[in-house]
């Protein structure tokens, strides 16, 4: 196991200007990263460029692999061997990684994927941002599985949410994404770094199976609640005899067809039963709002200003921001939209998550998509849609 050199792992306390990609890399280091494998892809290249020297300093290992398939497999291998592992890529890379991400979800091996999204499909406009991987991150792999995805909107959040993403990956043992984009990745912003001890307290370390305490080694407690035992670590005596991406019981023995449903539903239930704990949202002026903006990532940042502008114009607007994209908080969105008269979804794509909002909203309220491709919304563009919605309501 890589020994953590904790003095160098945390940045000195204070405020400093950082690029988004570097804030993400530093957040990963603070979150306990000790293995990184990657393959260069625009616009995520600053992450490996920064970690190549920073990670060995902290006692971790860095390797540039031959392709994205190899990167994610090396990450999986390192995580099986007990390292907290991460890779950074963009949309085309995530597409190549799909097979192994699906396997990681099946094996319940924690790892983090930083997806600095770029325009697509195909090669696309490689330096332009486009939130077109928000469905890919969940639905790209074969099989049914759940992932956790964070959508930060500032460099500060890239630092903080990356720490949180590592914690979530360790706690829920599933592939965890950070959905950055080409603008956010290259944004230079002040980032406030907390004291090293405070950051360290937030970090969830890798847990080890302990056969002396069998109560920690169960999938369900007495009340029938889902428990998530720690992942087995290669090189420790408790590693299962078979380590398959076939459905397996607690003893690691492969199951036959009739027994498949139990472990498979466990894979889904461990996330869907914990949506309240995993899903993070932010609300801004939604108590009396009639028109609700639902946004994530950079458009959410614009929407804060849009809400203020709309309120000045006498329109009761509010913002409900998704900090995590997956698992999608259907129940919370339902509650928020219970009293609403219209919902506006500004997105840096043609309206992908708007489809998810559509599933949660009441049928009698209209949904307005505000698509913007390869660049960020001007506040006025979203405001115009809100004004249109207010006219329709009146």
């Amino acid at each position, binding site marked *: 196991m890589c020994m953590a*050199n904790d003095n160098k792992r945390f940045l000195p306390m204070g405020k400093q200007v950082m690029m988004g990609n570097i804030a993400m890399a530093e957040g990963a280091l603070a979150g306990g990263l000790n293995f990184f494998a990657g393959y260069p892809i625009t616009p995520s290249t600053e992450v490996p460029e920064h970690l190549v020297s920073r990670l060995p300093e902290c006692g971790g290992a860095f390797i540039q692999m031959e392709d994205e398939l190899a990167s994610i497999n090396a990450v999986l291998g390192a995580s099986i061997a007990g390292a907290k592992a991460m890779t950074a890529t963009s949309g085309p890379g995530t597409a190549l990684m799909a097979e192994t991400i699906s396997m990681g979800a099946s094996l319940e091996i924690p790892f983090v994927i930083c997806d600095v999204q770029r325009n697509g499909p195909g090669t696309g406009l490689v330096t332009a941002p486009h939130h077109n991987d928000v469905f890919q991150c969940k639905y790209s792999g074969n099989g049914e599985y759940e992932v956790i995805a964070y959508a930060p909107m500032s460099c500060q959040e890239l630092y903080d949410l990356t720490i949180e993403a590592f914690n979530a990956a360790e706690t829920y043992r599933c592939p965890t994404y950070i959905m950055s984009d080409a603008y956010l990745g290259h944004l230079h912003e002040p980032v406030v770094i907390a004291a090293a001890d405070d950051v360290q307290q937030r970090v969830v370390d890798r847990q080890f199976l302990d056969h002396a305490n069998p109560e920690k080694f169960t999938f369900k407690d007495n009340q029938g609640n889902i428990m998530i035992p720690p992942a087995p670590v290669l*090189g420790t005596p408790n590693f299962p005899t078979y*380590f398959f991406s076939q459905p397996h019981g607690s003893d690691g023995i492969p199951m036959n067809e009739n027994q498949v449903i139990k472990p498979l539903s466990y894979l889904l239930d461990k996330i869907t039963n914990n949506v309240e704990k995993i899903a993070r949202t932010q609300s801004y002026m939604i108590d009396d709002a009639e028109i609700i903006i639902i946004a994530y990532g950079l458009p959410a940042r614009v929407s804060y200003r849009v809400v203020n502008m709309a309120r000045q114009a006498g329109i009761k607007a509010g913002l409900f921001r998704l900090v995590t994209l997956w698992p999608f908080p259907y129940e919370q969105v339902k509650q928020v939209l219970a009293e609403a008269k219209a919902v506006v979804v500004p997105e840096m794509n043609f309206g992908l998550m708007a489809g998810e909002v559509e599933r949660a909203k009441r049928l009698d309220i209209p949904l307005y998509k505000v698509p913007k491709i390869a660049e960020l919304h001007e506040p006025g563009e979203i405001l115009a849609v809100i004004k249109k919605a207010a006219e329709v309501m009146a």
Partner: protein
Amino acid sequence: MTPDIITFPNEKPEHPFTLQTMGGFMTNNFWSYFCGGCGYGIIAHLFDKVFLEQKLDPLLHPLVIGIGCYTQILPLLPVDSQRVCTLHGRAPAIATGIKLANPAMKPIIFTGDGDCLGIGGNHFIHLCRRNLDCVVLLFNNSIYGMTGGQAAPTTPQGYSSMTTLGKVFERPMDGVKLALAAGATYVARITVAHPRTLMKYMKRAIKHAGTSVIEIMTPCVTYFGRKNVNQEGKRMDSGGILIDWLKAHSVWNNQAKLLSEPELNDKFVLGEFKDDRATPEYAAEYERVKQQSMRS
């Protein structure tokens, strides 16, 4: 699960597709999915012998297993070893991650010709290029066995498969030459018909610091043999005939020097091709650089 096979604990199940039971494990009723005449049983037996003889620490020698017929080798491997089943072709990449995360480990990769030279070719090349400390056991049966006998990158010219129109006219891939060109530092080829030499090579590979590649020629009776005939025009549908075929098409590397190119075309050259102990190994080199970086 069929409970009735526990009745005769010391006999092998009659049918090769008898389901696995925990009772079978407990009562020494070892089972195997392999067809009669398959070479993987021999390989597993020899590997177990080497593993026990060399007193390898099972915690430091994870067995990273690719996808193919040989994935069913799992229950035949040493009982206390740690076995990681990977995706098709990705075993070298997963082994790289394991080795770098825990440099004390020496992964032993079980991979096949389709796994290692087909879908995972790139990972294999770059594993050899880095000279990462691990052992690659490349099982070459010249066919995709598990999916039902389709042409592999190693199917020799002039032989049939399920997905070949007529006879194979593509040139087969040479795993040894690829490993040598990519920079593996211990490279050997042997057949399952030479068990003692195979054990010798395995021991050397395990002691070697760096990427060791052993290509093991092994017979596939059900899909390669059944579809093809030997020199005498006889269908190769039994283990013995295929072992004879393997031996007839093998030539040791010192004899191979005396043969011309066309004569070597349908031959497997056996022996050790490289044993380079001077080239630095990747994980050790990285550890050295890392220590420097941590001190500065």
